[in-house]
C-alpha cells in the first residue's frame, strides 16, 4: 500500500481547510496526525474517503499509483481504504449483521453466506471481547462509546483494509477497552504487514502501544512539523504552542513533502 497526497487544496462551504497539503505514506508505516481542534484533521480523513461535502479545488490523492480523486466513497473502500470514525453512525432498523454481511459481500464481490459470516464474525468478536448480541442489534443503536469503537475495529478485521484511517478511535474508550482495541490493531498489523495507518488522536495511550513511525503536526491546513514518536510525547507534555507559534515548515516535513511532490 502506498498513499501520496500532492498539493491538495480543499474547501468546505467556501472556506479553505487544507492548503497545499502534502503527505506520503509508505507500506507498513504508522503516521500520526496531531493538532489543535479545527485545523483540518477530520477533513483530511473525509477527503481521503471521498466525502462529497468537501470540495477538492486542486491537487491529487494517489493510492497504489492510481489517482482516487474521482472515485466514489465505496470504490475507495473496496480498494482497501478504511475510515474508523470518531462518531460511528447510529442507524435504526439496519441490523449490524445485515450491514456487515452487505459490506463483506461488496468487498468480496460475491454474496457472503450466513455460515461463512458467522464463522468469521465469531472469531473476531471473541478477540475483541465483544458481546455477541451486538451483531443482532440495529447498527450502533444503544451501543456504549466503547462498543461502537470495537464495532469499528470488528469491521477492520472483517474487511481487511490496507490503509486504515483512525479518526480519534481512542476517544470514548475506557482503559481496558483501549488496550483490547490497540492489541487487536497490533495483531492485525502483524498479519497484514503491508497495511499502513493514519492515526488522528489527542491522547498518548494508543500511540504507546502502536509505536508510530511518523508524527505530523497539522496547523492552518498544512503540516508544519514532522518527527518521530518523541514529537508526540513532547506535545502530550508541553502542548502545541511552541510549534504553532513558530510555524515555519521544518526540514523533516519538507523532505516528506518533497518526496510526495516527486511521485
Amino acid at each position: 500500500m502506498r498513499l501520496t497526497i500532492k498539493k491538495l487544496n480543499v474547501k468546505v462551504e467556501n472556506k479553505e481547510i487544507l492548503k497545499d497539503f502534502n503527505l506520503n505514506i509508505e507500506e507498513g508505516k504508522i503516521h500520526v496526525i496531531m493538532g489543535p481542534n479545527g485545523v483540518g484533521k477530520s477533513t483530511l480523513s473525509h477527503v481521503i474517503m471521498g466525502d462529497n461535502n468537501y470540495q477538492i479545488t486542486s491537487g491529487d490523492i494517489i493510492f497504489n499509483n492510481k489517482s482516487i480523486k474521482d472515485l466514489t466513497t465505496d470504490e475507495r473502500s473496496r480498494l482497501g481504504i478504511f475510515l474508523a470514525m470518531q462518531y460511528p453512525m447510529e442507524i435504526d432498523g439496519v441490523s449490524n449483521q445485515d450491514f456487515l454481511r452487505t459490506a463483506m459481500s461488496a468487498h468480496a464481490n460475491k454474496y457472503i453466506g450466513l455460515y461463512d459470516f458467522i464463522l468469521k464474525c465469531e472469531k473476531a468478536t471473541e478477540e475483541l471481547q465483544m458481546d455477541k448480541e451486538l451483531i443482532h442489534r440495529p447498527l450502533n443503536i444503544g451501543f456504549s462509546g466503547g462498543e461502537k469503537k470495537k464495532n469499528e475495529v470488528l469491521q477492520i478485521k472483517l474487511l481487511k483494509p490496507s490503509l486504515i484511517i483512525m479518526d480519534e478511535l481512542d476517544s470514548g474508550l475506557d482503559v481496558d477497552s483501549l488496550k483490547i482495541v490497540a492489541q487487536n490493531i497490533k495483531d492485525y498489523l502483524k498479519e497484514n504487514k503491508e497495511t499502513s495507518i493514519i492515526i488522528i488522536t489527542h491522547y498518548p495511550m494508543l500511540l504507546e502501544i502502536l509505536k508510530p513511525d511518523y508524527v505530523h503536526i497539522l496547523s492552518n491546513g498544512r503540516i508544519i512539523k514532522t518527527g518521530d514518536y518523541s514529537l508526540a510525547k513532547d506535545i502530550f507534555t508541553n502542548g502545541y504552542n511552541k510549534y504553532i507559534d513558530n510555524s515555519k515548515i521544518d526540514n523533516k516535513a519538507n523532505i516528506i513533502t518533497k518526496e510526495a511532490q516527486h511521485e
Partner: protein
Amino acid sequence: MNNILVVNNQVANFHNQALTIKNNTITFHQSGNYQIEYQKCNNINLTYNFAKDIYVKIFEYSTNENIIIKNTYNLCQNTLITLYKFYNNKSTNEEININLQEEKAHINYHFSSISIGKDKHHIKINHFHQNTYSDIYNKSITLNNGQIEFIVDSILPKGNKGCILNQDTRVITLNDTQSAIHPNMYIDENDVEARHGSIIGRFSHDEIFYLMTRGINYNDTIKLLVKGYLFSNLNLDMEGRAKIFEIINKYWR
C-alpha cells in the same frame, strides 16, 4: 398465522372459531395472529370488532392498483390490538376509524408503505372512554411519482381521564414530489399524556456516507436504509418479511 383474504372487496370465507365474518365485518372473539391480504381490490369497506380481554396481532398487506379503503376498528375493554400494515398500491385513498370504546382498550398501529402514486391516509382515533391508549406510527417512503398525505386526528373528549395519545409520522422522500403530514390532537381534557412527532425528509448524508465507506455502493446503501426504515416499524414473522423483501427487491435490484 391465520391468513384471511379479501378478494374483489369482499372478505373470503374463513373458518375459525376465534372469529366470525359477516358482511365484511370481522369479529374477533379470541386472541390470535392474523394476516389479512387485499387482492384485486379497489374499494374496501371493512369493520373489525374486537371482544374484551383479548390480544390480537394483525398484519395487513396490500399491493393493488388504485384503491379506496374505509376501515373501522372497534376495541372493547382491556383489548390490545397490534396492527402492522404495509401498502404498495398504485394509489391509495384511505380512511381509518379507530374507536377505543371501553376502558383499557389499546391500539398499537404501525403503518409502513412505499408510495409510488398519490396516497392519502386519514386516521382518526377516538378515545371514547377514560384510560384508553393509542400508539400510532407511520413510516413511508415516496418513490417515482409517489406523494403521500397523512392526516392523523387523535380525539379526546372532556372527562375521559388517564388516556395516553401518541402519534409519530415520518416520510422519507426519494423523489422530488411534495408530501404532507397533518398531526392533529383534539384534546379537551387536562389529565392526559400526549406526544406527537412528524418528519418529512431524506436519508441523511452522514448515514449514506458511513455505509458507503464500508464499500457498499449507493444503490445498495439506499436499499439497506429502506429495509431498515420500513422494518423498524414492522415486527413481522419470516413470511411477512419475505413479502416486503420481494417488493423492496423489485425497486432496488
